[in-house]
């Protein structure tokens, strides 16, 4: 016995001629990388109209941040792009430091650059793994996760967390790196370039991979700029824009690296860009390790939250946490200024921008997050139109979106 479960689950048929019909892809779909819903209007297998729907993961971070102090709002940024949480933390800290005019010690800058690039590697490895899996290459997935695991272990060694770090602080970082961490990272860097070659052997000239990526999802340079694409999606179309070079933050102006560019603007060009970026990230980390200067890891004027070097084994119930020196709150200093700044950082997905308005209070009056994923999904409709439905999966993977960042 069969019967329709509810009316809404019947497949709706579009009015009009011939084979036109509509299909709802997601929000629960393995290839949409999160809770992305795409409403499709199809003519056979060709996409006539593509309407992405987001918001399933909206948690109101901008509203929440207005009700938290600058130091407290840091933990919200972990939950934006949870694949590369460290890069988001750093972006937030850099923006708040610019807003309040806080200086960062050199050692902290180097440590942040190292961790930022590690998180770029994490994100690119996960992107390659899932993107290849979507297109049909299973083996790459396992290879990428092998190396990603080493990086996550390193993060755990560094700050105790594997996913949501909150390791950078406004004005520095939370803890110093240990020599064991540096040694382990060096061992990873020694083997990593050969691992990238391994992935390339698997798919770089693979005939199926080329068929699925070359000439698919083409975006010209001007088009990409107009659509607001950033990161590897923009550079794959040949536009040389990388915030690390254009408006350097942390230690990026002290290290030597190249910004890989594509020319065709198709999925393959974006793939090549990201693969080359992994080489460059490894190069940046290597230089940072070699140059890592001694010194303090947090500036003297860091606001609100200063973690002690040694956490007491037991905190008496009667004394509050502030009294024991566990968390020191700086109240008296005239730290908070009014004004507004927009600061962009280069996260693995593209340009992550924070626009802050401060009215002299210790909470942001307004915090706007310019998230690359949100704009990339907005551009999906223009890119996927007129292509095959199978290529939509490849396009979503190639734009490298994460819904936590998109929906905020």
């Amino acid at each position, binding site marked *: 016995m*069969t019967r329709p*479960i509810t009316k809404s689950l019947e497949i709706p048929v579009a009015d009009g001629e011939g084979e036109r019909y509509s299909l709802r892809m997601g929000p629960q779909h393995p290839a949409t990388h999160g809770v992305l819903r795409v409403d499709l209007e199809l003519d056979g297998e060709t996409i006539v109209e593509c309407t992405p729907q987001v918001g399933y993961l909206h948690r109101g971070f901008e509203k929440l941040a207005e*009700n938290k102090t600058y130091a407290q709002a840091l933990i919200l940024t972990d939950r934006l792009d949870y694949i590369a949480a460290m890069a988001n933390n750093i972006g937030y800290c850099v923006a708040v430091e*610019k807003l309040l005019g806080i200086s960062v010690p050199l050692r902290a800058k180097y440590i942040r650059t190292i961790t930022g690039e590690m998180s770029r590697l994490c994100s690119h490895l996960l992107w390659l793994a899932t993107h290849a899996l979507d297109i049909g290459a299973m083996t790459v997935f396992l290879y990428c996760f092998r190396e990603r695991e080493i990086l996550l272990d390193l993060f755990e060694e560094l700050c105790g967390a594997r996913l949501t770090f909150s390791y950078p602080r406004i004005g520095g970082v939370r803890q110093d790196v240990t020599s064991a961490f540096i040694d382990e990272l060096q061992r990873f860097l020694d083997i990593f370039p050969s691992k990238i070659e391994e992935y390339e052997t698997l798919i770089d000239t693979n005939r199926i991979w080329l068929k699925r990526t070359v000439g698919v999802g083409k975006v010209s340079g001007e088009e990409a700029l107009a659509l607001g694409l950033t990161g590897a999606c923009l550079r794959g179309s040949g536009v040389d824009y990388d915030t690390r070079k254009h*408006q350097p933050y942390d230690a990026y102006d002290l290290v030597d690296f190249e910004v890989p560019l594509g020319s065709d603007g198709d999925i393959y060009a974006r793939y090549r860009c990201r693969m080359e970026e992994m080489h460059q990230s490894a190069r940046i980390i290597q230089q940072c390790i070699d140059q890592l200067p001694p010194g303090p890891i947090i500036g003297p004027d860091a606001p609100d939250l200063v973690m002690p070097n040694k956490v007491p084994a037991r905190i008496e119930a009667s004394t509050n946490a502030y009294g024991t020196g566990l968390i020191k709150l700086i109240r008296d200093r005239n730290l908070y200024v009014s004004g*507004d700044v927009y600061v962009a950082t280069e996260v693995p997905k593209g340009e992550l921008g924070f626009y802050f308005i401060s009215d002299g209070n210790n909470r942001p009056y307004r915090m706007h997050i310019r998230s690359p994923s*949100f704009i990339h999904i907005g551009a999906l409709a223009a890119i996927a139109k007129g292509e095959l439905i199978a290529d939509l999966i490849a396009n979503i993977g190639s734009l490298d979106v994460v819904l936590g960042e998109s929906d905020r």
Partner: protein
Amino acid sequence: MEPVAISDRLRAEFPDEILCSYSNQGQTAVVVRPGQIVEILRWLRDTPDLRMNHLRSLCGVDNARRKDPGLSRFEVVYNLYSIPLCHEIRVRAEVGDKDPAIDSVVDLWPGANWLERETFDLLGIRFEGHPDLRRVLLPDDWVGHPLRKDYPLKGKEEWAGMTELLDKIKELDRFGFDPEGHAHGQAAVQEEDDQ
């Protein structure tokens, strides 16, 4: 080009539109009237020695709780950047107190489409001439605009759609997700009852 020089050029080009300009932490912003926003941004984008071709961000602000005098209730902020010439400027357009509205810039940057929808969704600022001005992050039947300062952080009521969803779950429970499997399950219950 120095950011202050850009704001001076802008003032010379649109003397009636610019209300004021200021610098903060090395970044320059100009406050403008909303009327000719599309012309101003097009001029910034297309002038050969400015070439602000990258719309970095677009967002709305509710100034209801700000202490600075003379601010209108709502404003829309555009952050522009020139990739070939490496300079930036911020344009703040005051859009009034009641029923705020401004012209859409989707014709200049198609990427502004979703940013304007987001601003409409969260702050209730209308964009005239936008091709598809719907809510984007919140459900279509949501009441209110959360980023307005008079919108509470915590509410007492559930979203109206929530009860609908719960009803639907109950309905689905009644039928079972798999009609075949459910029929078997019911038969088993029937047997137990008989015994």
